[in-house]
């Protein structure tokens, strides 16, 4: 039985959440329906006409369909880096959790360092130029992998430590070679953490603004976050278009959220709190 106080508290909490969290999103959505004149007022009013489709068409086709290019780029970037992250981090987490050597301390130190240390921007650009990777999508993929490996490894290692070692040994006696053990026994068992990794990292990389800003200049390579930045000045007087753009690039995280809400929360906290 809920007490009257908790019902009352709930109603207050719901009202507060509407004002604090929902109104800003409602504002974005309302803006996408407005025409340029009404949007310029930037108020919380009901759209006078239905301009959503016009706004979308304008935003998508602006600058030679740049938003479409950006969506393609961001998708490639996200899918490729997350795939690499999942496999490479799971491999490291696996051996790190299983094999005790004198290097483990060093490796753990490097992982923590990777979590904390801000990347050195200009030296990285110089290096990427030297490797002919500067301003390329595959260079950007490798950068995202390098920067996000530590977090993924930590998530995996904590989980692998809970998988009994006897399973590896049973597989070994069954004739499994290291790659068999990893891909056929361990990796399938890591699925819950892999889901967390996929969701967290893909949202993070899809939303990444800073790194593409530095390492992936040029309109042909723009990612979705950079379209906002590029359009901001252009749409300075067209708030309907700016917010349509924001709404469009929020759709992928929204989909992820709707599908994986529960897993994200469970997995993220499992890794983070036990750390």
């Amino acid at each position, binding site marked *: 039985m809920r007490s009257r106080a908790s019902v009352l508290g709930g109603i207050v909490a719901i009202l507060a959440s509407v004002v604090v969290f929902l109104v800003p999103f409602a504002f974005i959505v309302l803006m996408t329906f407005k025409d340029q004149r009404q949007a310029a007022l930037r108020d*919380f009013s009901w759209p006078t006409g239905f301009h959503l489709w016009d706004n979308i068409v304008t935003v998508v086709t602006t600058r030679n369909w740049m938003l479409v290019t950006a969506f393609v780029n961001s998708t490639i970037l996200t899918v490729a880096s997350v795939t690499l992250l999942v496999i490479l981090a799971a491999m490291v987490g696996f051996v790190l959790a299983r094999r005790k050597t004198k290097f483990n301390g060093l490796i753990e130190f490097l992982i923590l360092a990777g979590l904390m240390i801000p990347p050195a921007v200009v030296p990285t650009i110089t290096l990427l130029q030297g490797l002919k990777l500067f301003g390329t999508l595959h260079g950007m993929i490798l950068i995202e992998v390098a920067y996000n490996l530590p977090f993924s490894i930590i998530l995996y290692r904590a989980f692998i430590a809970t998988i009994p070692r006897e399973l590896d040994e049973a597989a070994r006696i069954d004739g499994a070679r290291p790659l068999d053990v990893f891909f056929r026994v361990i990796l399938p068992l890591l699925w819950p953490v892999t889901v967390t990794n996929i969701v967290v990292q893909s949202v993070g990389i899809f939303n990444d603004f800073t790194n593409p800003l530095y390492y992936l200049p040029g309109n042909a390579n723009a990612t979705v976050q950079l379209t906002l930045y590029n359009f901001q000045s252009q749409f300075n007087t067209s708030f309907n278009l700016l917010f349509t753009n924001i709404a469009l690039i929020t759709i992928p995280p929204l989909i992820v959220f709707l599908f994986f809400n529960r897993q994200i929360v469970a997995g993220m906290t499992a890794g983070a709190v036990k750390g």
Partner: protein
Amino acid sequence: MAAAAPTSHGKSRSLYPGWFFLPAAVIYAVLFLAPTLSSFYYSLTRWTLFNATFIGLDNFVQFFREPFLVQGLINTVVYAVITSGLKVVLGMALAMLLTSNIIARGYLRSVVFFPVLVSTVGVGITFTVLMHPTQGMINEGLALLGIKGPGWLVDPKLALFSVALVDVWKGVGLATVIYIAGLVAIPKDYYEAARIDGAGPWQNFLYVTLPLSRPATATVITLSFIGGLRTFDLIWAMTKGGPGFASDTVASVIYKQYQAGFYGLSTAGNVVLFILIGILVVPITMFLNRKQGHE
């Protein structure tokens, strides 16, 4: 020797081969470690598009002499302290609310967490519009209540705090989720024992909840403090460090110097941020974890 004797007395091959580290190690070493290490050298140079000349500590001297650079340094620490402090307090409060027997718990958890997943730049732009001193929705709303809202982002004294508030708005969901996990993990026995000992709600919080959720607190503080020190995208989206240099942080300084072609100074900024994180975060994490070991 080792290679020549694969049969009789050699060691059987490990199930956990070291080369599993290799791909990750190469990517990490080349793209992260090498630039980080070389940044120490480059921070000691005057470095332009064409060449790098060794100038000793001049960049650092400049960093601590130029008022706007010092301002950036202070701003960075203030920003990190405010955001992580508020995330701890609000995250804990929200988590307690959302683990209580409240109605619409699922909806509330979702709505608090959703901003975590949204583009930071998108949030920044949205709030820049909402925080406009005269036409922004926030001040219009306050005006309805008869309050004259401040110039959130245009008042130099306020700009940094306004950005920090938005940061908390976007990030508190993560802190809440971590705290929820921490609170749920506290066995009910403790509360029952405390109740038998005659503890009220406040004592419950002080003597059970607070100490036993310390691992969660450690995680929230560490994550949000590091995040706060490194923040760039939100500040760039909202104020570009302005008005003037009022909301510049080390990260935005790094970008500005890079854009201006002062690569050495920009890299020195990186090293400063590195050291700042080192001297602030390492003691904090050690402190939090040592306390944890006591229990």
